[in-house]
């Protein structure tokens, strides 16, 4: 069974249809790369999955359960959206770290707030906090920031910020981790260190959806590639096929730039 099924998602802003009938599925442990030019709807798709936008049509299923169905208002209750969001993690292009918290504080904030809602929080406060902190320290160590835990975001490089943002998303153990152009705000050198972290996650079979303009990376890390254009999926398949032997004219055109550059 697929961990994620997206069926016929549509989204319009005013009269502009940004997503037109998007369907795909993703298996557990797989990495899906979404490529395409700016304005093709990639980011909106990720925002729909994370409930930052409400699709006008379509169904989103995670692990077989319906998270969102545009035809069923019972799946759209404001009170349940918070919980549903936790199936997904999202790493933003502009990091969006909380500036008043250290790297460690950024990773710990949401798990701490969630823990406060547990009935046993008051009794075991010290123990729960220690547990959350240990987990956050482990995550930051894994991504190579063990000596920057107490730094504030403005004291970190862009690459380090983005790695903290990845750790922050991982701390909530999402089923599917989404990346929205995670390296677009970084210079090539810093891009490398972030891509390395994402590759590391792929190696331990983290289910991920990555919107990116880094074609070599998309090809390398992905088990599935989707090429989007004008709000539709033009081509979809394993990376060897989409990059090596694209069938769609628009895909060929888009990738020719990238192939020339190589």
């Amino acid at each position, binding site marked *: 069974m697929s961990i994620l099924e997206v069926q016929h998602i549509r989204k319009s802003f005013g009269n502009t249809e940004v997503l037109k009938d998007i369907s795909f599925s993703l298996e557990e442990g797989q990495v899906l790369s979404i490529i395409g030019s700016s304005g093709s709807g990639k980011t909106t798709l990720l925002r729909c999955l*994370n*409930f*930052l936008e409400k699709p006008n049509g379509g169904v989103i299923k995670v692990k077989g359960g319906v998270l969102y169905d545009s035809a069923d208002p019972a799946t759209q209750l404001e009170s349940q959206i*918070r*919980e549903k*969001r*936790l199936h*997904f*993690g*999202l790493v*933003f292009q*502009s990091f*969006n*770290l*909380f*500036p*008043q918290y250290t790297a460690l504080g950024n990773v710990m*904030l*949401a798990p701490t*707030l*969630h823990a406060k809602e547990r009935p046993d929080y008051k009794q075991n406060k010290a123990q729960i906090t220690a547990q959350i902190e240990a987990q956050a320290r482990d995550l930051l160590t894994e991504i190579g920031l063990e000596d920057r835990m107490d730094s*504030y*975001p*403005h004291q970190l490089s862009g690459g380090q910020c983005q790695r903290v943002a990845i750790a*922050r*998303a991982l701390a*909530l153990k999402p089923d599917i981790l989404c990346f929205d152009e995670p390296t677009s705000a970084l210079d090539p050198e810093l891009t490398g260190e972030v891509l390395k972290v994402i590759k590391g996650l792929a190696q331990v079979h983290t289910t991920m959806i990555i919107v990116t303009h880094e074609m070599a990376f998309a090809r390398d890390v992905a088990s599935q590639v989707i090429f989007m254009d004008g709000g539709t999926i033009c081509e979809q398949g394993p990376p060897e096929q989409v990059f090596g032997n694209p069938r769609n004219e628009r895909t060929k055109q888009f990738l020719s730039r990238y192939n020339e550059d190589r």
Partner: protein
Amino acid sequence: MDKFLEQLPIVFGALNIGFLQTLKLFFVTLIGAFPLGLVIAFGSMSRFKPISYIAKVIVWIIRGTPLMIQLLILYYFPGLVFHQAIWGGGENGRFTAAAISFIINYSCYFSEIYRGGIQSVPKGQEEAGLVLGMTRSQIFRHVTLLQMIKNILPPISNEILTLVKDTSLARIIALQEIIWAGQSFMKGSHGISGAIWPLFFTALYYLIWNGIMTVLLGKLEKKLEYFR
């Protein structure tokens, strides 16, 4: 000269009592206007149109008219029009009327500063919080609020310094604040009359108090420099 030295402690005694009333009005206004301003700010940003409309009209009226008129109307209107002396005749009544006028007036100014401060926090901060499963109130308290305070501290400092001096407007309803106390020596009080010099000393009180405020607010601003 001997006479001056004799009068000095009497004058300072009276000015001190007046200044206490000034400070009381200052602090009560801040304590009331800080939270009320936030309520009005949320009101004017409300997605429910009638509420945002009402909040905006209130802010427009209060910011568009002099505080002195608001004071006069609030203090005299109930008595003169409805023949209801809701404030009573004494100093306590005058203080209550002055405090209410000041709180309403300053909360409207604060609300606009808050609104700017909230809107100056990037949208991505809220989205990051939402994606992490935080509620909107958690996001406000744990993410947005401190960034907003940092952003609004300079304009709020300005308002606070203005408020120190604005308290003197309460003189118009005969609140016995420091200007009233200083002026009383012109007409005659404590056996001193025709003296203008006590009034100069009132200015010194404002100056020193604003100096202290400037230093404190500067320290607070420094304290929030640990993040950007």
